[in-house]
């Protein structure tokens, strides 16, 4: 993508980087690099569609990992965080705009128990694009 600018002048600045398909790719890219395209997340309620999507993503995880071919040293990443850090602190540190309570609620919910999952979620948020 980066190597196919719209014309020989290269990429224009500002919002012109963002349109329908480039935005979705940008949002999806972190999870593809970090976690084989899976944003581990417990969907609320009993949305069968969400459940199916999660299942499909998990099924494809190994394939995506193979194609993206990245190795993440999670032990090193996770050990960089102080032991007593709260999820809320991590969210505030990674996202520049202030997220609202509903978003914070589901990010820091008790079912969201792994720091690794939280990191993947945070970098997949539109807010993270603002950094």
């Amino acid at each position: 993508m980066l190597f196919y600018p719209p014309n020989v002048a290269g990429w224009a600045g500002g919002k012109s980087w963002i349109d329908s398909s480039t935005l979705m790719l940008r949002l999806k890219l972190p999870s593809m690099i970090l976690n084989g395209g899976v944003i581990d997340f417990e969907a609320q309620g009993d949305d069968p569609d969400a459940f199916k999507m999660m299942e499909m993503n998990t099924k494809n995880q190994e394939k995506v990992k193979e194609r993206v071919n990245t190795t993440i040293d999670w032990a090193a990443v996770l050990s960089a965080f102080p032991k007593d850090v709260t999820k809320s602190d991590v969210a505030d540190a990674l996202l520049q705009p202030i997220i609202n309570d509903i978003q914070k609620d589901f990010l820091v919910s008790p079912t969201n128990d792994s720091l690794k999952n939280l990191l993947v979620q945070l970098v997949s948020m539109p807010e993270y694009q603002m950094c």
Partner: protein
Amino acid sequence: MDRRQFIKRSGLASSVFFVPSFLKPFEKYYSENNRNIVIIQLSGGNDGLNTIVPYDNDLYYQQRKSIAIAKENVIKLNDEQGFHPSMTALKDLYDKGYMSIINSVGYPNPDRSHFRSMDIWHTATDSNQYETTGWIGRYLDSNCAGCEHPYLAIETDDNLSLALKGSTKKGIAVKNVKQLYDETREPFFKNVLDAKDKVMLNEDNLGYLYKTMIETSSSASYIYETSKQVANTYAYPDTAFAKQLKTIATFINSGMQTKVYYVSLGGFDTHVNQIATQQRLLKEYSEGVVAFINNLKSVNKYDDTLMLTFSEFGRRVEQNASGGTDHGTASNVFVYGSNLKQKGIYNSMPDLSNLEEGDIKHTIDFRSVYATVLQNWLGVNNTSILKRDFPLLNFL
């Protein structure tokens, strides 16, 4: 059959069988409303003189010693001009009156840089003006019926061209419908969107991201859900370009409300060894277009579709020393439709004895082509979109 299918099918059945007779007069209105236009961009600057060849002109052969198309190979259209031999597939459409060829289309004070000239064609501005919105984008901005949906203008590519970007509205770029649809269905993204609030939407840049995400999500599901209802088994040539046209034909056939489709075919920048490259590209172009039109005809949708082909500029009349041609100015534009007012060759061929610094002088401003399409095909006021009055042409 589950509940969802049942509702879908019964809905379909009722609309087919129980159209009240008092609604019949509106059918014509609806069919006019289904009009769409497919714009094909030949990127890189297609050599118009070797595409529509002035085979009866000595000046042409004098200027192009090694790359001219020999008279006997030209597919003759009238006593002066004919197709490049690899456009043979188009001859049948031409004979049926489905094609109009407009010669010498350009704009005053032409710019020979690819990106600048392409920007001028996309924004429809004068060559000394800079604009951040495209002409299709401004059409979407102009409050046309249903224009709040990005799927009103679809580009079958990975990113959206300037032409389709308006100031408040924009089209949608989609190469692989299923993939985009799946991306928008990611449960995590759904949750993020559900949690959005007014503050986020009103914040300038973040709001733009959220709005784009929402629009993408709703458009992708509209496009996916609508287009999956028809299976397109029509045979197309095995090229990337034909594949894109096939996708568009499927969209049109599925009854999608899209007004503008945008496709590009690149590689026309033939500075070196033009013959082989252009031969391949024009064949790819012609065979794709022919398959597309025949596909639409086979499902009785061709009457709703107009097609337009342009390139950012033509090439210089005189060839260069590398068996190629360099950036030029005015060139030809093709219009395809089942009901063209003026069929065949629209205007006189370029005057090769009256050049401007070795380049063809434009006799028709490309914005007149746009104005005609906007006014007489899409049925909107062209002046507000093009910001000036351009004389309308007679092909529609």
